[in-house]
């Protein structure tokens, strides 16, 4: 079978699946031409670096409210795909749609503001800022980000009120991630794992719609990892968040993702429910080896 077939089918399937869900709000549905159920669609994405093709025509989409796994051997192009989606790299060709709008080549901050937020495979902390400051930075649309507002006497009280609520949320989130004892610590002094936690917590502070997580659990203690996963599921249920997760831990993928996309050499090799994926000979050969 060809790649094209492979990738076309799930997309239509996804659309079909989504139909019933979006029916419970007819007004909304009328307003949108495409069902809202595929918040993120990547079409024929290519990215070349010099002579190397890191992503080679990847096409896939992510369902609303899902926890979708993105797996593939090292160097398959997963991180690069993330970078292209989030504007860190400009794709060589292809398109990315978020909530039916094309966002290909938009700047990273615009994309993040739309609610499509990512974490980095290697955590990027604001090292000379405290953990709490890191957290409070994240929420979007803070009126105090306007210099005039935070300076002018009349307008500042509004900023202060807003800050108080942001601070409260930051504390809550830190508590959940069990790094509240580090709130006053400079982020630069955190250990590798602690940084990962902070990165995830901070991304959540932006109130994202869809989150792209690049190996968020690498280096995280298993006990904590389980907690985090619980939280992710919780967020999906309570706030309808959508997750696209790059992860190498197949057990984790099998247990938690309802949908998995397998990348290999820059293409989507297969996608479907985990059980189906693990049956695919090609996938086994390219990625899983004999281990699963």
């Amino acid at each position: 079978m060809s790649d094209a077939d492979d990738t076309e089918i799930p997309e239509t399937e996804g659309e079909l699946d989504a139909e019933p869900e979006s029916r419970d709000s007819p007004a909304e549905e009328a307003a949108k031409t495409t069902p809202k159920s595929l918040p993120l669609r990547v079409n024929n994405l290519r990215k070349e670096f010099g002579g190397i093709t890191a992503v080679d025509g990847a096409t896939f989409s992510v369902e609303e409210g899902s926890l979708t796994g993105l797996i593939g051997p090292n160097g398959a192009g997963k991180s690069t795909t993330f970078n292209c989606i989030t504007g860190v790299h400009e794709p060589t060709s292809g398109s990315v749609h978020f909530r039916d709008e094309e966002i290909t080549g938009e700047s990273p901050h615009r994309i993040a503001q739309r609610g499509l937020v990512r974490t980095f495979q290697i955590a990027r902390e604001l090292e000379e800022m405290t953990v709490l400051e890191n957290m409070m930075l994240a929420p979007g649309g803070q009126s105090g980000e306007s210099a005039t507002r935070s300076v002018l006497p009349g307008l500042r009280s509004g900023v202060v009120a807003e800050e108080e609520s942001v601070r409260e949320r930051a504390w809550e989130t830190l508590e959940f991630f069990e790094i509240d004892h580090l709130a006053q610590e400079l982020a630069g002094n955190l250990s590798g794992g602690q940084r990962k936690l902070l990165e995830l917590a901070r991304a959540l502070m932006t109130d994202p719609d869809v989150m792209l997580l690049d190996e968020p659990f690498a280096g995280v203690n298993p006990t904590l990892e389980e907690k985090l996963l619980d939280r992710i599921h919780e967020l999906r249920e309570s706030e309808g968040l959508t997750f696209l997760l790059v992860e190498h831990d197949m057990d984790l993928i099998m247990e938690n993702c309802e949908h998995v996309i397998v990348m290999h050499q820059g293409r989507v090799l297969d996608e479907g429910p985990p059980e189906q994926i693990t049956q695919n000979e090609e996938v086994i050969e390219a990625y899983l080896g004999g281990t699963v």
Partner: protein
Amino acid sequence: MTGASADARLPDDEAGLLSVRSLDAGYGDLQVLSGVDLDVRDGEYVTIVGPNGAGKSTVMKSVFGLTDYMDGTITFGDTAIHGWNPEDIIHEGLGYVPQNENVFAGLSVRENLEMGAYILDDVPEERLRDVFDRFPILEERQEQTAGSLSGGQQQMLAMGRALMLDPDLLMLDEPSAGLAPDLVADMFDRIDRINDDGTSILMVEQNAKEALRRCDRGYVLVQGENRYMDDGDTLLDDEEVRQDFLGG
């Protein structure tokens, strides 16, 4: 309770290749480790596990002279190496793969491997061959700059670089982080084999179950102090250890 041993110190006559005694170390004024004991006997395969921020990486860095040494002793073979420079320590036969930023991003893959053998006069071709055999992708990407490799590829390169010197003791800080499952298994197999060939291993892993399963002995480190020390399997079976550190 099956009771993993909480006594971290091996009897002195058993202390082997690497022996850390009552080590205090940290960064600047911040003391991270207090009174850490650790031993690796000749040919032994030792794993350190523990929560994030426990100081596992710090132990390794301290052995390699990259932290601010405060107190205690570190002996390797018969030589006390605490307070030494890393570039001297490597001559003693220690190899080290750090947790982060463990390749020279601006150098090509091949140059990275050559750097691994820097202290030798010539690049040992047979070891290079050996590394390429283990990680064929590296041979393919010889001329690519290491910084543009994928995370997993970089991890392989870092391993490869440390193997270039055929060290007596190889210290690996989370070697499986970010590796695809087949490679994780492969990596652990490789490490086993390296160990079988007589190289002692000291490893930090978050993939704790797998690591403890494979190692001879394990340490659990919490908040900069030894918590447990015992055979890998004993630790794996210990209810408390499982609950608190291995995710049930």
